[in-house]
């Protein structure tokens, strides 16, 4: 009897894992089904460029179907329950579906109501709609106090607020309103963002560009009327335009299943990505509790590890050790403005050593944004 493999989530982790599993296992040996709520795959790294006016939002979404191999079945439905003990998931329309192997690629989701006043008082670029609203706000901004910060940890793509500050600074300069604008960057940590070596690289660039960095600012509330942010540390910051990364949470279906142990993120073994206490459930990407970047790149490097383990189990063969263990590999670009960028490549044991920002890495990121659709979901890169 063919094995039943279910992948929950149609983002980069889910699509790539489903495609790799189907590539490794003949259709007669397994049925691979991917369940996604919307059936749309959104390239989220593009939001930054939508907000700063470089990219049209319409180019960032495609049908999940168009990215899947023919031998992966797509189910557009909402998963509303997971019963790991019984090996079943419940879908809103199709009802109960059994599985032999389950992959949780359920991502992270915005929680705009966690911080009082955030929804009405601040802008963000963490959804397509949010990025489009922010683009309009920047287009009509005539100067004043621009504040960029983080309203909750962890969040997707740790360097994104830093990149936004640099790209917004460029944009306001080009629009001729930079001289009338102060830019404050509020970090919840005692450096620009999570990664220490990259923070050391970007902090002098903040100084160069006249961006004032404030450390240990964990936003507690936003007053949309007085236009004032208050931090847990007891500081206040006035603003005319506040751009704050919203707090993130795990998918409701995963949290309510008990698999997160009461938290938001699924605890997994850092090498195998097996969910703690489970023998046939894996999680990857933003959904896990791993202390590494929540980023598409993370899911990209995790997917082959899960696909190899499942293919080995279905094929009754040992998993190839090199291909079935995740070493924490992540690779991402970091825009530093003025048409330059740097690149970070790291794993559990090796922090990144980012090169000096250059035109090359900026062009590489732009090229990657276009090449993504034809390479990453299909496992060609």
């Amino acid at each position, binding site marked *: 009897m063919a094995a039943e493999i279910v992948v929950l989530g149609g983002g980069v982790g889910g699509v790539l894992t489903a495609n790799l599993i189907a590539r490794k296992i003949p259709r007669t040996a397994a049925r691979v089904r991917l369940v996604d709520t919307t059936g749309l795959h959104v390239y989220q790294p593009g939001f930054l460029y939508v907000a700063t006016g470089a990219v049209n939002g319409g180019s960032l979404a495609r049908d999940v179907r168009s990215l899947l191999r023919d031998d992966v079945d797509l189910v557009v439905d909402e998963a509303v329950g997971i019963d790991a003990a019984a090996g079943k998931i419940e879908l809103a329309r199709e009802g109960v579906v059994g599985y032999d192997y389950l992959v949780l690629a359920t991502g992270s989701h915005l929680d705009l109501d966690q911080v009082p006043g955030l929804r009405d008082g601040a802008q963000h670029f963490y959804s397509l709609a949010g990025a489009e609203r922010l683009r309009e706000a920047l287009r009509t901004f005539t100067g004043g106090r621009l504040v960029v910060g983080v309203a909750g*940890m*962890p969040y997707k793509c740790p360097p994104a607020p830093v990149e936004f500050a640099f790209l917004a600074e460029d944009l306001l300069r080009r629009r001729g309103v930079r001289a009338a604008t102060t830019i404050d960057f509020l970090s*919840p*940590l*005692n450096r620009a963002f*999570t990664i*220490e070596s990259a923070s050391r690289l970007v902090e002098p660039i903040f100084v160069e560009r006249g961006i004032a960095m404030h*450390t*240990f600012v*964990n936003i*507690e509330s936003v007053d949309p009327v007085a236009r004032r942010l208050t931090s*847990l*540390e*007891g500081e206040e910051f006035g603003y005319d335009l506040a751009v704050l990364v919203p707090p993130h949470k795990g998918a409701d279906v995963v949290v309510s299943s008990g698999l997160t142990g009461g938290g938001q993120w699924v605890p997994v073994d850092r090498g195998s990505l097996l969910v703690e206490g489970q023998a046939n459930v894996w999680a990857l990407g933003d959904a896990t509790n791993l*202390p590494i970047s929540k980023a598409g790149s993370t899911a990209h490097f995790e997917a082959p590890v899960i696909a190899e383990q499942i293919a080995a189990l279905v094929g009754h063969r040992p998993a190839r050790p090199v291909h079935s263990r995740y070493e924490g590999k992540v690779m991402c670009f970091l825009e530093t403005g003025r048409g330059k960028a740097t690149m970070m490549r790291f794993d559990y044991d090796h922090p990144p050593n980012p090169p000096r920002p250059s035109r090359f890495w900026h062009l590489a990121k732009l090229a990657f944004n276009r090449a993504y659709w034809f390479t990453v979901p299909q496992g060609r890169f």
Partner: protein
Amino acid sequence: MATTINQEIDARGSFCPGPLMEMIRAIRESSVGQTVAVLSKDPGSRTDIPAWVAKARHEMVAIEDLDGYTRFVVTKAR
């Protein structure tokens, strides 16, 4: 007199800035006067946690070096 610990969080499986974020979260959820302990194996916590406590004007009650990890004890002061 020994300090009563209201909440102890084992963040030894977590790496920078995980233990600091656990401390911030616990203090955020505590009432004034309550005490939180966080266990960390990350060397960065030795710098990050005391620096944050000073900035946020809470009370650093103890930094205890134990068997391969450090225990940070903090009282919410305001």
